[in-house]
């Protein structure tokens, strides 16, 4: 147990990296996911097809494969420096964006169809209908599943450990190597730090869900 308290600085460094990965990837995934969702409901068939293909592909690929692709395959085509923070961010946000898209899309579908028709009928463009009429009404339905997507993201950052980003999992691995007798406690410490991110997010999801239930 002491191994946790003795190595707080190492944990904290890893924890902060995990937090940074989660936040940066989360924001990027949110932006990309919103655009993907807009494409998926757009009146233009090519945009719809593009977004659908992307989402189905990324959603059904293990995250590790996405990392492998970026780190080992993409550089062969002259794309990206392998390894490092931004590679992890790109892999994580590309992967998470697919899930954000699906959460947002189900929210969009929960808004009565007549709302979109009325918006179009008064002369709003597709983008205006979406941003001024549909999305504000979809937010309630979208936030709880979205928080779950971000909780998954926080946990998924651990995959970056395998690709030379020293986040929480990688710090844990180093500590375990240095303290072979205390491996279990080292890992308990790692888990506790992940919980420090995911539990508050879970509580937030619960609060929002209850608020939504009242508002209906």
């Amino acid at each position, binding site marked *: 147990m002491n191994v946790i308290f003795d190595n707080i600085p190492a944990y904290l460094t890893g924890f902060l990296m995990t937090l940074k990965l989660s936040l940066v990837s989360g924001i990027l995934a949110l932006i990309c996911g919103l655009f993907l969702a807009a494409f998926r409901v757009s009146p*233009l068939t090519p945009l719809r097809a593009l977004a659908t293909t992307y989402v189905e592909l990324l959603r059904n690929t293990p995250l590790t494969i996405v990392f492998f692709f970026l780190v080992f395959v993409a550089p062969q085509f002259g794309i990206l420096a392998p390894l490092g923070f931004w590679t992890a961010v790109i892999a994580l946000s590309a992967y998470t964006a697919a899930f954000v898209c699906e959460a947002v899309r189900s929210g969009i579908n929960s808004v*009565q169809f007549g*709302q979109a028709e009325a918006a179009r*009928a*008064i*002369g709003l*463009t597709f983008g205006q209908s979406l941003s001024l009429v549909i999305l504000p009404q979809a937010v309630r339905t979208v936030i709880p599943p979205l928080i779950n997507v971000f909780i998954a993201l926080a946990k998924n950052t651990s995959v970056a450990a395998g690709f030379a980003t020293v986040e929480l999992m990688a710090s844990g691995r180093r500590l375990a190597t240095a303290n072979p007798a205390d491996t279990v406690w080292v890992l308990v410490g790692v888990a506790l730090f992940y919980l420090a991110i995911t539990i508050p997010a879970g509580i937030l999801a619960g609060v929002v869900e209850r608020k939504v239930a009242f508002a209906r």
Partner: protein
Amino acid sequence: MAQPTSSVATPPGREDVPGEPLVVLSKVNKHFGALHVLRDIDLTVHRGEVVVVIGPSGSGKSTLCRAINRLETIDSGTITIDGAPLPAEGKALARLRADVGMVFQSFNLFAHKTVLQNVTLGPIKAKGMKKADAEAAAMRLLERVGVADQSGKLPAQLSGGQQQRVAIARALAMQPKVMLFDEPTSALDPEMINEVLDVMVSLAREGMTMVVVTHEMGFARKAAHRVVFMDGGQIVEEAGPEEFFTAPRSDRAKDFLSKILTH
């Protein structure tokens, strides 16, 4: 059966004479899968004219309305508004829709916006009007349809009749060239129907061009220049309201009228 004449200069019914052609449908066809919902529709609505569309459920009345502002695409034929053919998607289509007001059976007011915001959203965002100007204009319209005192409320706090009057104000706020009404009173409790019809009658009297899908004979008699009877995706008969309701020519119209009259 007489073919509908779509170029009547003086349609029977009302005494005033509508102007030049504003909405022109020519040989319009539309399918939903195997279902042929609009069959060779020819229809001309003149400036200032009020056309009531009547017919059994499923005859294609809503589809006709929705095709006019391209909420529904058509398979063949042409639709022009004020001489210009309907644009495909994009900004041009959005502009066209601003010229064609639409009132739905289920109101479709924006649920997250106040009554006032419902009316100002289009003018501000689609027409680039200043907020203050849009609000002043919106209040005048709300006054006109008799719901100015509700302007700060959300749609859900209003009665059906009030909501539909707000929906009319919302459409009018775009200063449309023509207004489409798709069964505007059929979702309303009976005691609220007249407050909506009254607004529509006064709109008609002020010279608004209107296409109204409705079974309200009182409205047709008071306000319509022409009644168009649809059945099975076709325009079966066109006549002035008095003539149509008292002496329909086609058997299908006779049959239909006998059914709605016995109700």
